[in-house]
């Protein structure tokens, strides 16, 4: 099954980290990424620009409205994701728990709807 691991981090805390802590953290991310590529569980991943760069789009009755920012003010913001291939939820939890941000922020694990191609 495919699972999307959404990474929620506290952006302002992250900016307060000194450079060497940030570097160490990014190093851990590289090592984690390598490990799931090696195990064949990696499908895709991206880091996102900070949440203040976000745009929210709605289309209602043919009218498009565009607003800034995330939907709600929360302490943690979506900062990136991994798309992984895992045997089942327990396997996915295993992988998600090794994402460096799991130690500071939170990882939301969501199964991806798999449509059988007609």
């Amino acid at each position: 099954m495919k699972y999307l691991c959404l990474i929620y981090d506290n952006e302002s805390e992250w900016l307060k980290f000194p450079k060497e802590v940030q570097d160490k953290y990014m190093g851990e991310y590289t090592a984690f990424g390598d490990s799931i590529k090696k195990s064949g569980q990696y499908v895709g991943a991206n880091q996102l620009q900070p949440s203040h760069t976000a745009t929210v789009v709605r289309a209602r009755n043919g009218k498009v409205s565009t607003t800034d920012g995330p939907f709600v003010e929360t302490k943690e913001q979506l900062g990136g994701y991994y798309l992984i291939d895992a045997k089942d939820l327990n396997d996915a939890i295993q992988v998600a728990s090794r994402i460096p941000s799991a130690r500071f922020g939170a990882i939301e694990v969501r199964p991806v709807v798999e449509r059988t191609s007609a």
Partner: protein
Amino acid sequence: MQNDVEAHVRDKVDAIYRSDSRRVLATLIRLLGDFDLAEEALHDAFAAAVERWPEDGVPRNPRTWLVSTGRFKAIDRLRRSSRFDSADGAALERFVQDEDPETDDGVEDDRLRLIFTCCHPALSADAQIALTLREVCGLTTEEVARAFLTPAPTLAQRIVRAKSKIRDAGIPYEIPSLSDLPDRLDSVLHVIYLVFNEGYLASAGPELTRESLSAEAIRLGRLLVELLPEPEAIGLLALMLLHEARRVGRTSSLGDVILLEDQDRSLWNREEIHEGVTLVERALTSRRIGPYSLQAAIAAVHAEAPDTASTDWAQIVALYDLLLKAEPSAVIELNRAAAIAMRDGPAAGLKLIDKILAMGDLEDYYPAHAARGELCRRLGRVGDAMAAYKRTLELVTQEPERRFLERRLMELDSRR
């Protein structure tokens, strides 16, 4: 004559349903990979037994017969339903191939798989409880709903959602790996203890105990100890038995609360106490002593004491110290303070309780105010005691507790 045979077989089927239907269900869920399909298959299998056994005789191993019949019935259902078109033929094949030579170990593993799946931490606590009582204990949805004072449709919905999460999120039907076991076991123990407490300290309503839930939790605890004799599983079973043993002494025939010190200890169930104490000893020798075992040890000290005065309060305080180290919490601090009051006098206990209340976490926790009221009363501080009991009354929802508090307030009022 024919009727006799049928009646005899029906009794036999009923008995097998009671003793083995959960085992058969657990195996069917593994074979079919789907809760609903397995439940239908279970019912089909028992219906087939009622129909065929009077003529064919009761098979030598009824459980194997039921599993294999259930499986074939499920395959029939799948073939007939539109759920399986030709593209799913492979999946169907897989079920057919899946029949395994059944060993008793395998069956017991299936029961454990079912418990761990129903108590998976990815499900909400409410859903874990509902699913466990429904699937592992075999209670009907209506029975679970009544026990939890929840409308049946709400509960049914909760179970449907939990099952679909198991399917859609890919929660596996497996016993957790050794590295995950401690965490996952915690979740199972928590569910069992919540069920027990819901029965023991019904959270609202006129009756203080709802015995069937506690009995169900103890049955679950026994099953878990039998399948997976981990120290904390043993500790939890001991804890539940030691509470249960003292159930009858807790309330009067009118349903009023009786405090520990006033309870008639000859009413306590000695057999359950003996079993509980033996289990505590077994859990404590493991050297991996967890919070349930420590709480059970505390309950054992109470259960074995002839009265409050000769209770070994020093040992109880020492056990609370260990418990606080294992699981720091304000509620445990409060209980420790109450034990200190018994060991060193009410003034020492009150000092600690005031400190705990000042931290704020227990501001709305009625036992904290009730304990404060009791200690003030013992110290003759009537006004403070009344204020504390009045605050308690504002927070309490159970009728018997309210009656107790009102009685206390009246007594105090007459002393002013």
